[in-house]
């Protein structure tokens, strides 16, 4: 590990007023969007994308990653105060966090959540940093053959893990890949699926696809009365900083649990598609199992807040790894970041290890520093957190629509994108409405060009025998394993459900 680069980038991050200013904007915004049920952190990142256009790559990436890093910290606030998860990953926190609030320990629960998120975020970043020297030779050993299979593995993983219906997941993953084929064919140079439109020659850009699949469906749902939450009964309750501080100290009282769940979260983050829900529930289960008094869980045990929160934030460190080094986003949020990175001129992939390692370190530190900043900012805002109930998310709909359209236009400077995003947005809403898992689509769009380019190169270098390379065989085994695991899980569930046997 090059210590100079590692700590030099930290020094730059902490002493550059511009970067600190950007983080001071991104962190409260990320926490706010995370805290608003019906909005969510991805929308926050979507809104910021147009603003990073034209920025220096490092500044833009730091801004977006800082925002993304603290989304889950904000998401825990409504879970704890109102019993309503800000996002899917915060559902595990409701069990004990909301019970603590009902027992008059809301401030302490918030403190435990902030402290755990901060510790988890920092440890997740440290985990990523420590893996770098180990990872470098592995990343560099990957050839086009392995990248092709890695792309297929990413889609299979995400399709099998993203919902009950694997067929829907696979169909959308394949559709994402088909969308990625729009444009000029890399081998023959001929146009594919462009229907005579010049703007499609460059393909459908990732930003438009992601905005259409996430921002637009959420706004249509919010505007049509779905996902609007009324928690005005709990509004304006004041919490004391001393109570919150007590909760932060709790994280250090349970340091063993915090460390273990941070590590588990970071490892889960490494696996594309497994996501935050799995991380938080697995760690919650671990907290119950490892407790001497498991009967307290579900009734307001502070460990029930600490465990899922550390995992939620530490998994972002793990998820950044496949995103940056293999261009395989670990989650839909990371897919969005990946698209934004490409727009900024950052090319994730193995070359980032050799050519742009200072950027990698900068992002690792941004992940850690933004988590610490978030704890400090939320601690300062504690007395007013109850006022969140007064915010009306539907008021933000027109602004999100305008900035989504702007982001789509700016991503390739084509006004035709405004028509494209409308149709893809309607498709995205249909998918949302009828429970088609959208992450495989986004991953397909992101991985499509990687898969195609790698396949052509692998075939040119080795012919069909590239499937027999050692790492290829391991990846093929993993693809088969993920499908077999899905089939086994489905059969087991059908046996366990009475009447289905």
């Amino acid at each position, binding site marked *: 590990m090059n210590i100079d680069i590692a700590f030099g980038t930290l020094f730059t991050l902490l002493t550059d007023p511009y970067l600190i200013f950007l983080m001071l904007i991104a962190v409260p915004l990320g926490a706010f969007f995370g805290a608003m049920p019906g909005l969510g952190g991805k929308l926050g990142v979507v809104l910021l994308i147009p603003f990073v256009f034209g920025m220096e790559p490092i500044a833009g990436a730091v801004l977006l990653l800082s925002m993304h890093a603290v989304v889950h910290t904000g998401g825990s606030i409504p879970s704890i105060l109102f019993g309503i998860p800000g996002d899917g990953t915060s559902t595990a926190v409701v069990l004990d966090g909301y019970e603590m609030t009902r027992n008059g320990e809301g401030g302490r629960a918030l403190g435990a959540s902030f402290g755990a998120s901060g510790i988890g975020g920092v440890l997740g970043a440290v985990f990523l940093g420590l893996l770098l020297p180990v990872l470098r030779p592995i990343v560099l050993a990957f050839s086009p053959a392995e990248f092709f299979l890695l792309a297929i593995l990413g889609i299979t993983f995400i399709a099998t893990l993203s919902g009950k219906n694997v067929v829907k997941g696979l169909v959308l993953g394949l559709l994402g890949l088909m969308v990625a084929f729009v444009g000029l064919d890399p081998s023959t140079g001929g146009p594919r699926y462009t229907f005579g439109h010049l703007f499609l020659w460059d393909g459908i850009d990732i930003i438009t696809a992601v905005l259409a699949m996430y921002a637009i469906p959420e706004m249509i749902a919010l505007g049509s009365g779905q996902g609007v939450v009324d928690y005005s009964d709990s509004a304006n309750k004041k919490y004391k900083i001393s109570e919150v501080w007590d909760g932060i100290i709790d994280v250090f009282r349970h340091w063993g649990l915090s460390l273990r769940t941070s590590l588990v979260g970071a490892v889960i983050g490494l696996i594309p598609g497994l996501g935050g829900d799995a991380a938080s529930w697995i760690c919650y289960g671990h907290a119950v199992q490892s407790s001497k008094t498991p009967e307290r869980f579900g009734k307001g045990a502070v460990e029930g807040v600490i465990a899922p929160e550390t995992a939620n934030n530490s998994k972002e460190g793990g998820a950044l790894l496949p995103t940056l080094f293999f261009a395989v986003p670990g989650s839909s949020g990371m897919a969005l970041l990946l698209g934004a990175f490409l727009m900024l001129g950052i090319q994730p992939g193995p070359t980032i290890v050799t050519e742009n390692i200072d950027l990698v370190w900068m992002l690792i530190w941004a992940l850690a520093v933004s988590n610490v900043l978030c704890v400090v900012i939320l601690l300062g805002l504690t007395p007013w957190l109850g006022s969140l109930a007064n915010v009306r998310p539907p008021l933000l709909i027109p602004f999100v629509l*305008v900035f989504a359209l702007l982001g789509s236009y700016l991503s390739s400077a084509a006004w035709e994108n405004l028509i494209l995003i409308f149709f893809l947005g309607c498709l995205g809403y249909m998918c949302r409405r009828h429970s088609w898992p959208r992450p495989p689509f986004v991953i397909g769009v992101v991985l499509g060009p990687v898969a195609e380019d790698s396949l052509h190169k692998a075939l040119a270098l080795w012919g069909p025998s590239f499937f027999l390379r050692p790492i290829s065989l391991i990846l093929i085994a993993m693809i088969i394993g993920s499908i077999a695991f899905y089939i086994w899980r489905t059969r087991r569930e059908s046996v366990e459900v009475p009447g289905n046997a």
Partner: protein
Amino acid sequence: MLEGRIITAGLMLAIFTTAVTIALLYFPAGARMLPLVIGIPGVILSAIQLVSELRKSDSEQASPEVRAGEIRMIAWFASFACVIIFLGFTYGSPVMIAAYLSIRAKEKWYTVLIGAALVWVILEYVFTQGIGIVLYEGIIPPMFIVY
């Protein structure tokens, strides 16, 4: 009336079938390999999903209020896209924000005014003058304004 879940599955099947047909008919051999490798399993899987949806007996019909809300929101989204295509971002965005806040959200006049002004200031002073981005001007403004 056909349910949304059947329409969605049918739409997926139609997209994949069209994509595979186009690849077979119009692409040269080298260019159609991956679209076929991906498209054919897509046709098979979406057909399986469609059959599964057709066999389902339970209905997932949305309430009339939700359905009306969905149609209204899609119409609003289409309006945002159309107005911005015609008026550009600088003029179209404040117009649509004001229209949405006053007609759909039924906000007070000063909220409408602040919302429209805020987005105009961001587009004009942050994007155009601050970052130096040339925003899409629309179809109509260039006919009257010399940029």
